[in-house]
């Protein structure tokens, strides 16, 4: 059952028995978009027409960066001098985000159909799905779904008698957050350590095996069949906020709400409606303290800021934060914010790939200073030291945005909740703050 404010497009079959199988997907209109492109309206759907429709939808990258998908596809060269690749980023590991895991385990066919359509739009014959290594059930379900799609003639040679070819294979990562960064993912897919690449060249020009490549998120691909079937304009208008943010978005809601989970709501929904109506509000007797809106790498919102926040790319930008992956972490007034921040810093220190000095050293320093604060072993100037890392770690000093993510994830918490960090300096033992 859909919760209040949910508009289920990608999640239309969510919760049905055997939702991961091709029969359920087809019964709900699955692979109809592919038939429309290749059979029913085959003269209309040139590669450019597919890209234009996706542009019209205002679909933006659902992995976190929010880059317009149609535009990203249009960057691939039109010629066929080199093979082109369609890669799905299923390396979901942004803290607080778990929507892609549900899609992979419960609804893999939407992503697969979206990838085939991307292949047609980009003249690509090969796609790869890069799943994080921990997602074993998801990997099994995706493998089974690929087999079903081959058996039905949606994958392989001469798809639906069209003469078009698209092959799909899976790849399992092995435990590295950085591989969610698209160029690190490509390195990993080539069998190497996950070290992000210098850009330019961007993957659209030089991606997998040095060939033009698009890398898109699971949810992004899963939206594509609906856009083809019902039109880019229809999808764009599902958004209720800024027109530049089209469609619906999956939000992974965790933390101190009554009903955590994955919800699909229109972009532009007020944040408080999601928390208090869709997710049933906070636990009894508790007050909101803060919300991390889009995964741990997005700046935190205080309860006051969250009051007027809108869930679209523009609404979040107004508050100096980002929609990110839609990984919403809700913190009530029982939260020890210092410990919470330490956990995030511990994670980043563990996951820096080590390629660039400011990030490798900086993420460790952030963790070390927070460890001292947490142990009541810090001086008041340590908090300033922590904030001073900001200018030296991010700001283009590194190859990829990981260092910026550390800064955006940690610094705003320290700034907005500074008294609680200061209080730790004078305490001799840990007690939950916010009381």
């Amino acid at each position, binding site marked *: 059952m859909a919760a209040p404010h949910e508009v289920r497009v990608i999640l239309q079959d969510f919760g049905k028995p055997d939702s991961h199988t091709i029969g359920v997907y087809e019964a709900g209109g699955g692979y109809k978009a592919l038939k429309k492109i290749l059979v029913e309206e085959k003269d209309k759907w040139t590669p450019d027409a597919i890209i234009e429709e996706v542009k019209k939808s205002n679909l933006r990258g659902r992995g976190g960066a929010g880059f317009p998908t149609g535009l990203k596809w249009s960057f691939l060269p039109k010629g066929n001098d080199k093979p082109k690749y369609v890669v799905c980023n299923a390396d979901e590991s942004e803290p*607080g985000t778990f929507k892609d895991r549900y899609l992979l385990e419960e609804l893999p066919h939407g992503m697969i159909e979206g990838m085939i359509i991307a292949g047609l739009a980009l003249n690509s014959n090969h796609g790869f799905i890069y799943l994080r*290594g921990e997602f074993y059930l998801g990997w099994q379900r995706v493998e089974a779904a690929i087999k079903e799609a081959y058996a039905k003639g949606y994958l392989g040679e001469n798809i639906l008698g069209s003469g078009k070819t698209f092959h799909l294979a899976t790849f399992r990562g092995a435990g590295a957050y950085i591989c969610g960064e698209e160029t690190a993912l490509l390195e990993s897919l080539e069998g190497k350590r996950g070290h992000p690449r210098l850009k330019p060249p961007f993957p659209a020009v030089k991606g997998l095996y040095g060939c033009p490549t698009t890398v898109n998120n699971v949810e992004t691909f899963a939206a594509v069949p609906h856009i083809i079937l019902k039109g880019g304009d229809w999808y764009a208008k599902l958004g209720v906020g800024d027109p530049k943010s089209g469609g619906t978005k999956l939000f992974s809601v965790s933390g101190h709400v009554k009903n955590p989970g994955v919800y699909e709501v229109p972009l532009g929904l007020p944040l408080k409606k999601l928390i208090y109506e869709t997710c049933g509000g906070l636990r009894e007797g508790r007050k909101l303290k803060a919300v991390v809106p889009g995964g741990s790498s997005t700046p935190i919102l205080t309860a006051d800021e969250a009051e007027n926040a809108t869930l679209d790319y523009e609404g979040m930008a107004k508050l100096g934060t980002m929609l990110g992956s839609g990984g919403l972490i809700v913190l009530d007034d029982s939260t020890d914010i210092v410990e919470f921040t330490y956990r995030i810093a511990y994670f980043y220190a563990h*996951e820096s790939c080590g390629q660039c000095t400011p990030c490798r050293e900086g993420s460790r320093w952030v963790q070390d200073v927070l460890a001292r604060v947490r142990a009541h072993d810090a001086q008041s100037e340590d908090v300033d030291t922590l904030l001073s890392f900001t200018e030296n770690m991010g700001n283009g000093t590194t190859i990829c945005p990981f260092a910026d993510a550390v800064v955006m994830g940690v610094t705003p918490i320290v700034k907005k909740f500074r008294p609680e960090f200061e209080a730790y300096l004078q305490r001799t033992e840990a007690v939950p703050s916010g009381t």
Partner: protein
Amino acid sequence: MSTEKTYQFSPHAEARFKELETKFPQRSSLVIWALHLVQEDVGYIPRDAVDYVAQRVGVAPSWVAGVVSFYSMFHEEPIGKYNLNICYNASCYLMGSDKLEECVTRKLGIKPGETTPDGLFTYTRQAECLAACGKAPAIQVNEEYYEDLTPEKLEALIDELKKKG
């Protein structure tokens, strides 16, 4: 010449590897896949398997060794039969994962990174969010997720795994 038996793929891994060879346009992509197969075979990546994978894929052993050390799921030493990965990240913390950590240490007498003397359990502090935040706190035991856990449920799970041996 040493007579010590060196690692090679089991028949199952061999068949999987041959299938994977047809799926990737360039062989280097097989490095990580091959390491997964090794670990499924023997539970970790023995030193001679690094050389073996390098030779099967056609890259330098140093390439393969570098990959093994980079990815946290690859183990360079044997670990316990059941790897208890307890999520240490933000959402699981909010929902009480500390109690799960205490439970493992109390019940099994091991700290993060340690293995029980009988070789049955390894306790891993999972830094990377498991993407189970909606049903936090969560742990992963080998391939399986266990969610919405309490110390009581975790104790029961450990007892069950002990019984299975």
